[in-house]
């Protein structure tokens, strides 16, 4: 069974988690339509180490995982804004 570590609830089976996609910072609200369309649709699709949203469904916890999408290895997980406080 594959495991993932929730920053609040500890190591749990992967089946308890939902993938929420790449972590991205939205552009300013007054950006051009082109920039906004790029933000809405486009992704950094190439493999590599990425920060992603994950959701621990039983406890309703959203957090960020840093994961290598080529090897599927999770490097670390943390709550948003608490990156340095693990």
């Amino acid at each position: 069974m594959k495991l993932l570590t929730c920053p609040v609830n500890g190591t749990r089976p992967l089946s308890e988690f939902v993938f929420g996609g790449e972590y991205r910072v939205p552009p300013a609200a007054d950006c051009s339509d082109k920039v906004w369309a790029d933000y809405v649709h486009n992704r950094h699709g190439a493999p590599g180490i990425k920060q992603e949203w994950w959701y621990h469904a039983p406890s309703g916890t959203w957090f960020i995982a840093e994961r290598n999408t080529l090897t599927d290895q999770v490097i670390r997980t943390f709550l948003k804004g608490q990156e340095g406080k693990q």
Partner: protein
Amino acid sequence: MPLRLLKYALSKNYPGTRFFKAHETPKKSYDVVIIGGGGHGLAAAYYLAKEHGITNVAVLEKGYIGGGNTGRNTTIVRSNYLTPEGVKFYDASVKIYEDLSEELDLNLFYSTRGHFTLAHTESAMRTMRWRAEVNKHVGVESYVVGPEEISKACPQLDMSCSGQAPILGALYHAPGSVARHDGVAWGYARGADRLGVEIFQNTEVLGIDVQGGKVAGVKTSKGYIATTKVLSAVAGFTPRICEMVGMDTPIVIHPLQACVTEPMKPWLDTILVSGSLHVYVSQSSRGELVMGSSLDPYEVHSTRSTLDFVEGLTSHMLDMFPFLSNIKVVRQWAGMADMTPDFAPIMGKTPIEGFYLDAGWGTWGFKATPISGKTMAETIARDHAPDLIHSFRLSRFEDYELTGEKGAASVGH
């Protein structure tokens, strides 16, 4: 064909002629370079040569031809989609497939089976009616059937699905077929080779040379090739190729897994799909049940397979066919699927002059092989995409004109 086999048996020349010439070193330049020697890339090369007289073409394949998603899908060909533009496009593909064995002079084992998309809920029935009406409007033979007709076509099916998900009806699609997928790649490869296209296996693309917004060449593991036109036809690798030209796309890679059972005597004539149970199944000409399910739930660039997948799939198979409990799964594998937000492909021109995309083929690429080859060949030859693929252009995302095809995905992804 039997006569050729007899001549081959009596001949003293062994081995026989190869399907295509084994080129080793590419020339310094080509009119068109196609990245990816799967069905799509080879079909594009074939139609470029046959219909547009462009024969100075190189097809570059990192591994061996047909070894990617062309050889990893569950071989289903159908056109019962949801949007009129999707139905028209896939219908054109089915029509080419029907005569393709003849055209390529290769038996593709193209077998029209009829295709049932089972509905277990009222909301699924509503989608089936919707799809049936769109299909009929475009002239595709699809209609909604009740449980009796399904039971008659497949008496082995437990209509209650172990009491878990009783079948209320189905979308029946008469032209639904299966074909030998690797044969499609080999047939197009041979056809293209005979017309002068050069196919390079074990040749990896390392970079694309873009100068002043125009394609100038391709860096490969076998040296630099100058060209002004590059087609990317690399299922599962599109984001990596697009990164070489500094372009982001909406494509995210998810693995899609499949498996086969040990061979059995023929008993399953039709192709069955259940969205609610996340299963699609047909019986191959070898007697194996070929089965697939939903995508893996998160992005991974790998063709690893998992036990979770087989456990989930087989438990649903047993809901449908309890008598299969003693049948063994003998092989499982995965492919990397280019997923798009609207479940439609991305085809045609890009902001970079001379860089063409045949991508975003997610879980629906094999059935589109002939028509995508044909339309991409036209796009490259005329530098203008035909109307048939206008709705699939990359700029649809910028224009917020998506082609909502998710409702016609074979299973709920």
